[in-house]
């Protein structure tokens, strides 16, 4: 019984802290700042949830925004891009460019998305 309990606790411990040490290789400017300040969990309480569920969140939000006029920041693509864009030499790099925040994982798992043929790929405000 004790052994089982230890195994169970060890598993839950690793699943909770599995991602905390290993950061995304290119988190983006504002997101890195927030992480340094320890505030990133206020935005994404569960990292595994946002990693797995973000397509559903975005899909749900897009219909709410477009068809019902709900323009909250939570789950909006605009807010994703705002935090997860990286700047270089005083300019933002498009978030869907190779090795940027969106494309690192999408390249790896081999999905190609069509968000950014219409949506803006950098934050609106210039540096």
């Amino acid at each position, binding site marked *: 019984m004790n052994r089982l*309990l230890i195994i169970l606790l060890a598993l839950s411990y690793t699943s909770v802290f599995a991602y905390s040490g290993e950061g995304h290789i290119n988190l983006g400017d504002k997101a890195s700042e927030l992480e340094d300040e320890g505030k990133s969990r206020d935005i994404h*309480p569960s990292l595994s949830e946002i990693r797995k569920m973000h397509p559903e969140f975005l899909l749900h939000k897009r219909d709410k925004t477009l068809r*019902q006029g*709900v323009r909250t920041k939570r789950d909006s693509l605009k807010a994703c891009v705002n935090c997860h864009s990286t700047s270089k030499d005083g300019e933002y790099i498009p978030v869907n460019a190779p090795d940027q925040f969106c494309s690192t994982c999408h390249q790896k798992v081999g999905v190609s998305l069509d968000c950014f043929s219409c949506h803006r790929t950098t934050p609106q405000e210039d540096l």
Partner: protein
Amino acid sequence: MSKKLNRRDFIKSTTASTAGVATIASGISLTTFAVNDNPVTKEKRWGMLVDINQLSESDIDNMVNACQEENGWGNETHSTGHQKPSWIKKIKVKDRATGKIDSLPMMCQHCEQPPCVDVCPTNASMRREDGVVLVDKHLCIGCRYCMMACPYDARSFVHENLSNQKEHMPRGKGTVESCTLCVHRVDKGGVPACAEAVSGEGVIFGDLYDADSKINQTLKKIQSTQIRADLNLNTGVRYSGI
């Protein structure tokens, strides 16, 4: 370890810790989700009243420029002639008997019974509860039936790859687009860019149903028309002085 943990104790302790985590988690979600979250309702109907007599030629040009600036269209380099998008344009109408020429701004009229919505095969062309007619570009397949159906020639098709779009106005190749009544501004309590570009009372924007709104009161007082009123579309954009 001397003390054996029995089943009952184990369940007790896990329940307590789960309840603790749940309380904290619900606190987090409450703070992050509690923002203004109200869908639009049919208690409002957005509309616009354009008074031709108060608009000069340059006022109409300003309206067109303001729309381009706000929504980021008009810089397409590869599109030619009729391919170029025009969300709002200046048109001239001539009275054949007297030869009197009026210029007026023409954009999506935000009909209550929109023909573009009737013909759309994918439900991309749609009308919001508050009367704003939009294209859901996620669903648009670019068939352009709506462009054929629109009596006002208000819609455009994007013929080329675009980049650097406005943050609030996604636009892309292969989809149809038109005036959105600057819905991104209206949802935040603002007015459309074209209405803002005109000083004075040449263009009045507001809620047609609200008896206290300026547009409602003005429409009660003065003579106004809907363009192609014979089609019974009940447009949201009204004109006076034609």
